[in-house]
């Protein structure tokens, strides 16, 4: 069964235009000009139960707007949404009983009272029985090591501590779907990986479906089997992370450290006939870029036999770079296709 189903979802905002200068401000007083901004443009996707899905895109791509429609905060302009069998904005109060929400930039907790008292209050709001609450809280507190924090007021917690408490707050009622909007924003590496581990465990043990937005691609690599990439309100990629890497990774890079000075011309000569590119870092170091279709071992065989090598390092294109180049081109199609398409367009223009 699908936890989340979205069909042709669209959200349009009316944005007020401010005219320039004092005269413009005065004109605005009497006649406002509005422009329509479509934040989410007819997107469709399905997320099966128990999946962890990453939702990525640049700032302003429409991630948060989508999450807000999925959680029932915003009413879509058009299209269908179904989350856990509910239409989020229709039966909001019944629907939210079933989901957990964490907004990295906003707190769910009460600022002035102890963490445990916030949890108690949420217990009442979500109608969790005393017994279930105790069991769940013990489990979460132990897992996230919050024992010492429980009696402190939220305003005295560090960001990392607060974030862990936010996760507990969102999971106290054992929701089947968890929405996380930038859960690791501003956290240090230790806390980040703790949170990732925790989310993974939650997903495995309780079968919780998780949808998270993030700018940190390591979150995605650590957690998600699937990514949905958004650009300017449209889905430009929806599929596995490995597939994305394969599709976009254009080649690998091998770094050599030599025992004796080796000239660039020499290296080029060794690999003659291969479509590789050498760059020298200094006398004792060089890099070679090998396209995907070529076997790394073939290149290595030629160099290793001839040169005096102290160290070799093979570097795959990392996700950061892949995503950056997709953002820049604004499409997840293969770059070659893109270039071909561009050329066709040009030719057409000439004719």
């Amino acid at each position: 069964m699908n936890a989340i189903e979205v069909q042709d979802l669209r959200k349009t905002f009316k944005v007020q235009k401010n005219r320039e200068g004092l005269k413009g401000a005065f004109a605005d007083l009497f006649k406002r000009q509005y422009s329509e901004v479509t934040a989410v443009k007819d997107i469709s996707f399905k997320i099966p139960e128990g999946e962890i899905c990453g939702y990525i895109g640049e700032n302003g791509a429409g991630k948060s707007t989508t999450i807000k429609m999925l959680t029932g905060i915003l009413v879509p302009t058009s299209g269908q949404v179904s989350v856990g069998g509910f239409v989020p904005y229709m039966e909001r109060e019944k629907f939210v009983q079933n989901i957990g929400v964490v907004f990295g930039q906003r707190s769910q907790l009460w600022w002035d009272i102890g963490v445990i008292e916030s949890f108690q209050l949420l217990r009442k709001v979500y109608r969790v029985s005393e017994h279930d609450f105790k069991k769940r809280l013990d489990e979460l507190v132990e897992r996230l090591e919050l024992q010492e924090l429980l009696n402190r007021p939220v305003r005295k917690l560090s960001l990392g501590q607060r974030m862990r408490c936010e996760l507990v707050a969102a999971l106290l009622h054992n929701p089947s779907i968890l929405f996380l909007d930038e859960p690791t924003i501003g956290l240090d590496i230790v806390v980040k990986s703790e949170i990732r581990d925790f989310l993974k465990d939650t997903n495995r043990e309780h079968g919780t479906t998780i949808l998270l937005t993030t700018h940190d691609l390591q979150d995605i690599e650590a957690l998600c089997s699937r990514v949905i990439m958004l650009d300017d309100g449209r889905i430009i990629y929806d599929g596995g992370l490995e597939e994305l890497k394969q599709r976009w990774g254009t080649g690998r890079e091998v770094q050599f450290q030599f025992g004796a000075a080796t000239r660039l011309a020499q290296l080029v000569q060794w690999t003659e006939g291969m479509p590789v590119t050498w760059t020298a870092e200094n006398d004792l170091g060089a890099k070679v870029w090998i396209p995907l279709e070529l076997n790394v071992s073939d290149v290595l065989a030629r160099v290793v036999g001839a040169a005096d090598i102290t160290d070799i390092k093979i570097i795959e294109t990392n996700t950061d770079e892949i995503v950056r180049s997709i953002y820049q081109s604004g499409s997840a199609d293969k770059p070659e296709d893109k270039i071909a398409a561009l050329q066709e367009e040009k030719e057409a223009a000439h004719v």
Partner: protein
Amino acid sequence: MYHLGLLWEYLKNYMKTRLTYRADFWVEVISDLLFQATNFIFIMVIFMHTESLGGWNQNEVVFVYGFFMVPFGVFSCFVNMWNFSERYIVKGEMDRVLTRPAHNLFQILLENVDPPSLIGSFIGLVIMAISGANLGLPFEWWTIPVLLLLTLSAVAIYTGIYTALTSLSFYSDAPTGILPLMYNIQNYGRYPVTIYNRAIQVLLTWIIPFAFVGIYPAALFLQRDEMRGMAILTPVVGAVFLSIGLLCWNYGVKRYKGAGS
């Protein structure tokens, strides 16, 4: 039951947080009382110059003022939406409210309860008792239940009007001017409406019915037969305006745009 339970929990939390800022608590109580005292002195000053105001003597006007304070105190305690636009719309806290399984308006009211305002209600009761005794008003078996009913109706009127006005925040970013204006107009309701001209009477009775939070219901206890019909209408007006307010609100929530990322 669920809602009452939540109310109790939020009140407990209010106490916990407020008692840590004790000085602030007392400053609020005292400034509230001073505010009421200035209004009260104003009535006294008027009656230093005249024997009656539109056919109402000093004790009657003071009684009306006392009644006016009772629902107003209850309303200020439980329905405090002054900073709604800034806190929930501009800062986007509405997001959080909407992801919890209780009605959003109810949650907002709970998060902003202000129990010190209830002190005003108690003082209002004391004023009613004193001026009522001066006037020799009878205390009947129905006095308390009717007082309760009329107070709740008046609170419903306030809540309806202010909820409808606050829901404008969902459409426009800053409906600043209207609330203070209303706040001033509602004070007209504690004087005999007959002293105003016809247009203002109609306004205060049917359009923004603040006459129903002071003079009309109070007239019932003062045995003013000319206003008895109006007094009996109070619960109806309360129900109608509360419904309008809630409809506006629920419609407005659908237009909520969220803030920031």
